[in-house]
């Protein structure tokens, strides 16, 4: 019967389809792979290590308008851009005039709150890199894809980068949540660690990995070695009194000396340290964040610093950014004044400025303020990198020899054991003579602060320095627009430490806010 035949066929079809029903619910993405596959090859493991580093060089792994972290503009979510905004913009060295951008005005004026978008961004960026490092350590704990000694170095570098970001959190936020490779993804909220305990942790990690890292200057460019760990230890110890109340100046001298004796030397030309080809012939930089106009693109990093400092009337082409020049970052008056009343007459090579408008009468005005042209996307021979337009190829030194000289000098002057005043003076004068300026005959703590200003300005040291000198919040030193007043005013001392972002306070009930906020 025809009709029944149709019925019969339909029933068969029905049965076939129903029988295969559940499997269809397992759908997997393409263009992705599993942790197991990534860490089963030496190449994959190294590409995963690249992300542990890349987390502080790029906003995402996809595009310049995407980000690993959320709640902030993607281009702004870069580590260095945010670190710069917190370490430079609130100080006497710099001012950001994009005051309509969220959080900027509060950073300029030291009036931030726990809901500041930039602080939220930096905090999450640092913890993101820590999370990626933790996951690398977890996934490689029993890996056999890479030779044992190579893997040990990779793992030590991941721990170094984690320690570096914990130092950032220690310095800026004090009491962050604590996670290590035993903290798994998607599980319970982490516990808070106190500033003193975090100091101990960072110290212990750096001490533990110093022997596993490769010797100074023997690793590939861009990867951390022993000297990087010592340089961070020296920096950590210099600020120990701020972090824990206990001085470690002798240790600062010890580790600065280790770095100084590791074979680095000052670059003969100061300005070449901040140019597009600073990855080549550079004996001074210990570890840098690497950028490239073609391969490592990001709206933060040195792209932000160079484009931010240059505006369209300064001929962006002459800074290697023919397609850029955003003009939003300027120096506050005290910075050029470190080089005398008129920086153009200074013999100091480090006085790298543009313009004559010292006074900032309006924090939002694009015409006020001296421009800083220390960082550029030009090569040292005057050429521009191939296809350069907006993105900058200049690598950013996070550790360089000059800082270690200054740590030695300051720790010595602060009474650290193992250093000598004459050696301190020598080191300071080495920097001055490299800059082709006159030597000092004596050196005081205040001279060190000024020398740090001249040598390290716009390199993300200033807020920490002013805090260590007790000048960041007090009336002992006022600079234009400090506290939001055009001539400067003191602010409450709790601003020496940033608040834990409100978003994490509400998401993680283990956290207690820093006092004052």
């Amino acid at each position, binding site marked *: 019967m025809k*009709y029944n035949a*149709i019925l019969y066929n*339909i*029933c068969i079809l029905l049965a076939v389809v*129903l*029988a295969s029903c559940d499997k*269809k*619910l397992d*759908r997997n993405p*393409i*263009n*992705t*792979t599993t*942790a197991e*596959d990534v860490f089963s090859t030496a190449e*994959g493991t*190294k590409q995963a290590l690249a*992300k542990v580093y890349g987390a502080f060089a*790029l906003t995402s*792994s996809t595009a310049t308008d995407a980000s*690993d972290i*959320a709640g902030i*503009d993607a281009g702004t979510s870069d580590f260095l851009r945010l670190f710069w905004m917190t370490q430079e913009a609130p100080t006497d060295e710099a001012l950001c005039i*994009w*005051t*309509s*951008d*969220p959080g900027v005005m*509060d950073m300029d004026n030291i009036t931030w709150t*726990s*809901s500041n978008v930039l602080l939220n961004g930096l905090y*999450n960026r640092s913890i*993101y890199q*820590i*999370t990626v490092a933790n*996951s690398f350590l977890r996934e490689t704990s029993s890996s056999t894809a890479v030779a044992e000694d190579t893997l040990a170095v990779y793992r030590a570098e991941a721990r170094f980068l984690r320690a570096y970001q914990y130092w950032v959190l220690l310095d800026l936020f004090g009491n*962050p*949540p604590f996670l290590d490779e035993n903290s798994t993804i*998607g599980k319970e*909220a*982490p516990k808070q660690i106190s500033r003193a305990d975090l100091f101990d942790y960072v110290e212990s990690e750096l001490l533990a990995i110093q022997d596993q890292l490769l010797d100074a200057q023997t690793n590939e*460019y*861009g*990867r951390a070695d022993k000297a990087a760990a010592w340089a961070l230890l020296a920096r950590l110890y210099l600020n120990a009194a701020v972090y824990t109340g206990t001085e470690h100046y002798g240790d600062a001298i010890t580790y600065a000396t280790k770095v100084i004796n590791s074979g680095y030397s000052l670059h003969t030309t100061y300005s070449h340290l901040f140019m597009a080809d600073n990855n080549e012939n550079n004996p001074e930089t210990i570890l840098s964040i690497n950028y*490239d106009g*073609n*391969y*490592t693109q990001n709206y933060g990093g040195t792209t932000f610093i160079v484009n931010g400092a240059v*505006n369209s009337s300064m001929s962006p082409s002459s800074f290697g950014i*023919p*397609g850029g020049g*955003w003009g939003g970052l300027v120096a506050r008056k005290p910075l050029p004044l470190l080089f005398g009343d008129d920086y153009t007459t200074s013999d100091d090579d480090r006085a790298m400025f543009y313009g004559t408008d010292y006074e900032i009468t309006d924090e*939002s005005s*694009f015409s006020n303020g001296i421009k800083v042209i220390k960082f550029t996307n030009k090569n040292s021979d005057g050429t*521009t990198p191939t*296809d*350069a337009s*907006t993105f900058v190829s200049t690598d950013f030194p996070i550790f360089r020899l000059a800082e270690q000289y200054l740590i030695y000098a300051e720790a010595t002057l602060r009474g650290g054991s193992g250093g000598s005043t004459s050696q301190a003076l020598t080191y300071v004068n080495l920097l001055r003579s490299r800059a082709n300026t006159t030597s000092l005959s004596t050196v005081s703590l205040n001279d060190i602060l000024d020398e740090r200003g001249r040598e390290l300005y716009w390199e993300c040291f200033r807020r920490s320095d002013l805090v260590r000198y007790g000048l960041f919040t007090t009336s002992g030193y006022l600079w234009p627009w400090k506290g939001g007043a055009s001539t400067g005013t003191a602010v409450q001392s709790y601003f020496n430490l940033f608040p834990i972002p409100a*978003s994490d306070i509400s*998401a993680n009930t283990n956290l207690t806010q820093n006092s004052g906020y």
Partner: protein
Amino acid sequence: MQRKRCLQAYLTLLMLVCSMAAFAQTRQVTGTVTDEKTGDPLYGATIQARGTNYATVTDSTGKFQINVPGNASTLQVSSIGYASKEVPISGPVIRVQLTAFASSLDNVVVIGYGTVRKSDVTGAVNTLTTKDFQKGTVTSFDQMISGKATGVSITPNGGRPGAGSTILIRGLASLNGSNSPLQVVDGAPFDGYVNPNDIESVTILKDAASTAIYGSRASSGVILITTKSGLRGRPKINFNTLVSAGKVSNYVDVLNADEFRTLVTDHYDETYTALLGSASTDWQKEIYQTALTSNTNIAVSGTAKWLPYRISAGWLDQQGVLKTDLMQRGTASLKLTPSFFKKLLKVELNVNASTTKNRNANQSAISNAVIFDPTQSVNGDYGFGDYFQWLNADGTPNTLASLNPVALLMQQNDISRYNRAFGNLKLDLKLPFLPDLHLIANGGVDRSKTTGRTILDSLARNAYSATDDYTYRGSNHQYESDATNAFLEYTLNYTRELPNIRSNINAMATYGYYDYKSEWLNFATYDAYGALWPNTTPTYANGLDQHTLISYVGRLIYTYDDKYTLTASFRRDGSSRFAPANRWGTFPGVAVGWNIKKENFLSDVAALSDLKLRLSYGLTGNQDGISSYSYIPSYYLSNTTAMYQFGSTYYQMYTPSSYDAGLKWESTRSSNIGLDFGFFKNRLSGSIDLYRKYTFDMLSSVNLAAGTNFTNILTTNVGNMSSTGFELNLNAAIIRQKDIDWSVNFNTSHNESIIEKLQSTSASDKGVANTSAGVTGATGNYIEYNAVGNTPNSFLVYKQVYDAATGKPIEGVYADLTGDGAVTSGNDQYFYHAPYPKWLFGFSTNFRYKSITFNTVLRSNVGNYVYNNVAANLGTYALVALNGQLGNASRDIYNTGFAYRQLLSDYYIQNASFLKMDNISLTYDFGRVLRDHINLTLSANVQNVFTVTKYTGLNPEVYNGVDYQFYPVPRVYTLGLNLNF
């Protein structure tokens, strides 16, 4: 476990099929079936001996001949469009007259997976048919029903041809999931394009008891589209064509050239006054055009022998008001509804196909036209074709400057082709031995493909490498994607009248499989001379996204005595978007209806013609709006522009993705109470509904405890949201006479949605930003936030302080809401209104005098607020001259006098309540012309007639609440011709 269930379903089925019916002795009955009113014979009417499988259909003269079992006493006679009738077999010849429904849909309502008698509807359901639809240049179904359906907000996504609308049914049900209703076309869950001319009815299911049958897909309501079917008899042809002209009715209010010159001269020195040009250009007038549209459709419908068919074709040629925007779309549809084996097997085949060619204008011309210096002329030699562009003093292009809007349009040629075909085949089998049981198989496929290429002229200012030597100029980028969706459903439907116990049973069980797959290719970009633009080579050549749903559905509708109806439904859904442990969700629904008018105590109340109470409760789920693979931990390689350098080698980075292994269904519980009423023989009828929706395990983007995932904000199941609302729908046939006919519809609804919980319940928590509604004017500002105690996407702003004497806002001065002596970000920001209307009103009226028909639709939203980002961005003195260029200002600058942007001031949050006349039309019906062969109708129509609002921007109807670069919705004048023969 699932396998077992599958087996059970199969066995049950098999048993039903394999049992056999007994045969008995028969006798012959003949007769005719005619239309009661006209006396016309009815072709294709079904005649069946009740309780048997003996059936036949009438021939073209309405005659039938049937063998019935000796004991058969009653014939059931039915025909599409007519009320079914049971007649006793009183002799060998029987004459039957059937009564036509005024419209076939008046008495049958399409619901999920079937139809029910209107009197059996227990949920909140809105049905609109051809007579209700908006007329004129209507190119999609959402335009037809705007203002007509109670509780449905339809906001156009701008005026671009084919832009579509954002449809919200009863407000929001989700923050991150989708809030778009599920669209079902003739039983196929595809959101493909249906030519409005082919649509017979649109049914909107609003409450959970109606939508729970669609389970996981129905939290935001369901829109059922039913297309027109073939008519009985000889072919009928409908031909209609219209031409229309659309004009921009309103421009953004910026300064004219003279005002601008004065402003620059008054506020700036020689550096910038030197930049002023001598022209007087209204850039907005330069970029817009009168948009001409023609739309022609032809449909043939009839029955060829045994095959009822409807076939249609349409051609739409629509310009956009933005110059160079053009859409050309051809559509074709086919519907076949034959029956076989004496109507035991009913077949329905639907095919909808469309091919669209678009030239896509560069929409950034809209914002650039608003901002561009009105003193410059359009043309000139600046090195980028014959167009004015801003240059630096050294002659290089100023990369921070805005771009000549006319050049943006003319130097871009973006042509895309979009082909889509979807259709379904439905087989409805009645078992000969058990005619009350239907076995229905319904399957369909939806295929679409987009191909296109964006070409920017070699002299385009927006496509050159800003390198020292302009290495690359122009651009040529190809794109291609396609999608394949498929579904298959098996349904058992059992309907049974049980007159002895005055009961009616309609039971149904369905298995459904739904698969959605999209694929795309990634291409590099080349310059106009064929050179590869650096770093545009994609890491992966193609992409794929696929998700699958499997559903088991059951429903019982039980009616007792035509007075009491109980509907109970159950759906179990499995989604590939969740890990196996969380994959399945169960979504039940229950509803009761009480036809009070049928109670004895009301039988004497003559004025009351209808009164029915409806109560419903149900649970629905949602998994739309999240990515297909977000529960799976995975690694991906970074792009070639995101590599990290070790030594002299750049490494692509293996990057862990964030994921939530515990992701599960978002669920919405909702309850509805409704009353349908009719007075004076239903001359006045309507309904009232009250509802409450409660969403839990809500898919929300929330801050994670830092360090617990590879991101800090993740979409996960956190939070609750509630919505409460009220709906009223009134229809009145005020005059119903031979020459004059006047009817009115009024509908209103109120909805209030509140977030009750996110990860924190603290009212001081400002929540998480809606990053899809960014603020133009500074980097990284958001103005809409989701926070506990507020409507979703509420504006988070500072409270502006005004000068008591002048009433003007004081720049940068905001209220210290915390009273701590300082105005700080976050702490002193407060939630001030939201983009969603609190009240919706719709009013339409239809007035006919003899052959002339007039109708109009008015629509009003009340309580919706819009952020006027145009004024906030351009209403400042200091930014008129900046970075070596000049840019126009909003006229609002005279009201504020602001030097700098005050982007987050509540000054710019404006009440955008409005009253809009959507449509006004006049139709003349010439009746039969050309020797009575053709029915001719002419119509004239205006759409977007006027808008009354206090909102100062271009258009108060902005779908995401942030008004910037809004494509104007034109006023459209249409002339139409309609022929039937």
